[in-house]
């Protein structure tokens, strides 16, 4: 991994200005030397540079522990089409006109190429606590996560696997949902917040467990996983991230779970919590030797239609072996962007 170097580090304001060509993992490693962190989890092996995440080529949402992308990005430095360098004004908040961070991030470098970013960083956590539950009812888990988010006791880490994913992990006999929650920060903070969450989870119908999970799940580098493990002969074909409001989440989640029994396996994981919505990460799996591009495209389209029907907002669609189908590009455009050209 190439080492990242800071262009500027303001530890007092908790801001680090970095080169966008560096990978998030390299930036994390450089920050660790200052006992600081971006609050990203699970990107260790990803070779994509930060700029790919900022311009919208890759989804950062599932890996963020402290809010959304714009909570992370305080300012961006860009190169304009005429070669001129520019940057958005660095301020904790401003009322000085439109916020161009939101145009430059997600714009796929159409108006300016992102070359650097000033990121909000955090002290490395003093403590962390994680809990794993097998819960009888998916909706009870969703309700609790929603209520704790609204009460501002949101966990930094969440992975909620539906029964179909859990069956893949534990075998046919297990049809419950798997919830992983994690809190980190100061010791006192973690004890209080984690304690409150666990008290509420213990009251749900289900089982708290750690020991029944496969051993590698206890490896700090891989836990909690974004996905349930692949079997030896499986591979990912398409990765999707989509957000939907809490009121539409359960029907969508259940619908996707039912869909998992299609021609190719679909894994659905709840990976992010926001005030009004939750982030779902989906992965379409195929078996080695049984790949049919036409069928995979049709399966993907079915899933996309399902998301659109439930009014989910699609954040990322990443076919791992091919380009995004032109028919799906409209999912990422809107009438105002079209006007800007």
């Amino acid at each position, binding site marked *: 991994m190439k080492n990242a170097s800071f262009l500027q580090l*303001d530890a*007092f*304001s908790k*801001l680090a200005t970095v080169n966008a060509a560096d990978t998030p993992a390299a930036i994390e490693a450089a920050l660790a030397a200052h006992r600081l962190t971006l609050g990203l989890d699970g990107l260790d092996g990803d070779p994509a540079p930060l700029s790919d*995440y900022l311009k*919208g080529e890759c*989804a950062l*949402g599932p890996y*963020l522990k402290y809010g*959304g*992308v*714009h909570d992370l990005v305080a300012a961006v430095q*860009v190169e304009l089409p005429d070669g*001129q360098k*520019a*940057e958005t*004004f*660095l*301020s*904790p*908040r*401003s*009322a*000085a*006109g*439109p*916020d*161009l961070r*939101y*145009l430059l*991030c*997600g714009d796929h470098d159409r108006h300016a190429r992102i070359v650097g970013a000033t990121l*909000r960083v955090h002290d490395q956590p003093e403590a962390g606590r994680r809990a794993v539950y097998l819960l009888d009812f998916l909706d009870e888990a969703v309700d609790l996560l*929603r209520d704790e988010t*609204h009460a*501002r*006791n949101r966990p930094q880490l969440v992975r909620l696997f539906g029964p179909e994913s859990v069956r893949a992990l534990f075998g046919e006999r297990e049809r419950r949902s798997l919830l992983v929650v994690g809190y980190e*920060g*100061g010791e006192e*903070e973690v004890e*209080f917040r984690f304690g409150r969450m666990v008290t509420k989870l213990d009251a749900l119908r289900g089982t708290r467990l750690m020991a029944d999970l496969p051993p590698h799940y206890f490896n700090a580098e891989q836990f909690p996983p974004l996905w349930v493990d692949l079997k030896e002969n499986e591979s990912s074909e398409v990765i999707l991230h989509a*957000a939907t*409001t*809490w*009121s*539409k989440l359960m029907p969508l989640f259940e619908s996707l779970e039912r869909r998992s029994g299609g021609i190719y396996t679909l894994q659905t994981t709840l990976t992010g919590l926001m*005030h*009004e*919505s939750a*982030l779902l990460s989906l992965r379409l799996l195929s078996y080695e030797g049984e790949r049919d591009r036409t069928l995979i495209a049709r399966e993907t389209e079915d899933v996309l239609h399902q998301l659109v029907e439930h009014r989910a*907002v699609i*954040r*990322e669609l990443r076919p791992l072996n091919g380009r995004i189908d032109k028919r799906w590009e409209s999912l*990422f455009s*809107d*009438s*105002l*962007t079209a006007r*800007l*050209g």
Partner: protein
Amino acid sequence: MAVPLKLSALSDQRVDALAAIVGHEHVSTATHDRLLYSRDMWPQTVLWTKRGHFPHPPDAVVSPGCTEEVSRLLAYCNGEGIPVIPYGGGSGVCAGILPEQGGVILNMRRMDRIVSIDSDAMIAEIETGIYGEILERQLNPRGFTMGHFPSSIYCSTLGGYLAARSAGQMSSRYGKIEDMVIGLEVVLPDGSIHRTPMAQIGTSRIDWNQIVIGSEGTLGVITRAWMKISPVPAHREYLSFHFRGVDEGLNAMRRVMQAGLEPSVLRLYDEFDTVVAATHGPGSNPDAADARPSLWTQRLGDLAEMLKKSSLNRALKRPGWLNKATGLLPPKCLLVVITEGEPDLAAFEAKRVRDICRDARGQSAGEGPARYWMEHRYAISYKQSKIFDAGAWVDTMEVATTWRDVTPLYNAVRAAVADQCFIMAHFSHAYPDGCCIYFSMTASADNPSAMEANHLKVWQTALEAVHRNRGTLTHHHGVGRSKGFMLPREFGALWPLCRQIKGALDPNGIMNPGNLGMKP
């Protein structure tokens, strides 16, 4: 007093065309309406008004009742080249409303409904003409709050908040208005109606919410918004601390926010505020646990009384020595804190704040100052007219910067204008990476034109100092025409991109022309 007002430039035919869209009763070319809607609360225009000067009346005031009417109005005005200035409560203080080219004031206040509430997702769909206080009054009985409490809440609207990137007094917990937006309905000058997708957690596309918010009526009209709402807090904890100077207090604020805590209120008053609190607080003993600060609210009233007696009025004409005198004050600054939410969470946050403040050498001042602040939090906006009546001007400047630059910026601005006005500040709207400095400035002069010139000079000097010290020129009041001249400097090489957005969405330049420094 008869006010000379130039005639409306709109022909009867055009007035009839507007009336055909919204009804005759919702179109006015009456003198009193054109006077009333000719400005906002920018102090310069307040001074103009006091001498009967109304240079920029609109040609008509039109009040649409629904999005479709807004759409038809804009399409008509766009076709005819008639300027359109969206108008909420008129409480802005930066000349965001000033029909320099005449045109139509689009009074949004008929559009004031809460359309729906999604209680699972905690989203309210709201028309933007609703007053902030009425919105809260309608949400609260249903168990919700928007958590947006600007001091202008009785006379400002949701549309105004969105247009100018407003902040409420509890923004440290609930966020600024831009943090509360899920989606917007926007009508562009050609009459097209657009709904933005739900706000982003990722970045797969441009988030137009954050381009339209803060555009101050220069791109289109925000007719509806999907806003985050929160449960009405079940419990509040009140805390107050004294620190030995601004730096110690700021250190405590920074540590509270960087610890991940979300107090609803975190306000630090500089030495002058704290002394006034001790001197003029109603029946207060500054060393008692329940000491009540008078703070800026009460100080305004006191200041007005003193001005009426002329003594301070004379002093304000020589503000240099007055500012120097405040430098001799004992270093004692008051920090007011409120935490809220479910009882155990609010109590836990209060304990953590208490621990941090004590560790930062703060001395507890009990609950009193925080409770007093809470009870009087809206009083300020409605006392400023007394200062003007007494022959002086008063204005506020809210800027923001990173923690590293807060103290240098505070000192630089005070030093820059020390000979031009009396200046003081408090620090609020805190974030993990910085905070807002809210300067209050007042001065007097021998005659109205000298006052107007002095007011403009103070702003020019202060904003130059802000810019030199890496502060944004506004945290939550917006830009308007009063600060528009500085906006290209703040955007630097990205300013042409702002012009490109304006050109793409409003190619004929009818939307609030001249605002945000967008000169044709």
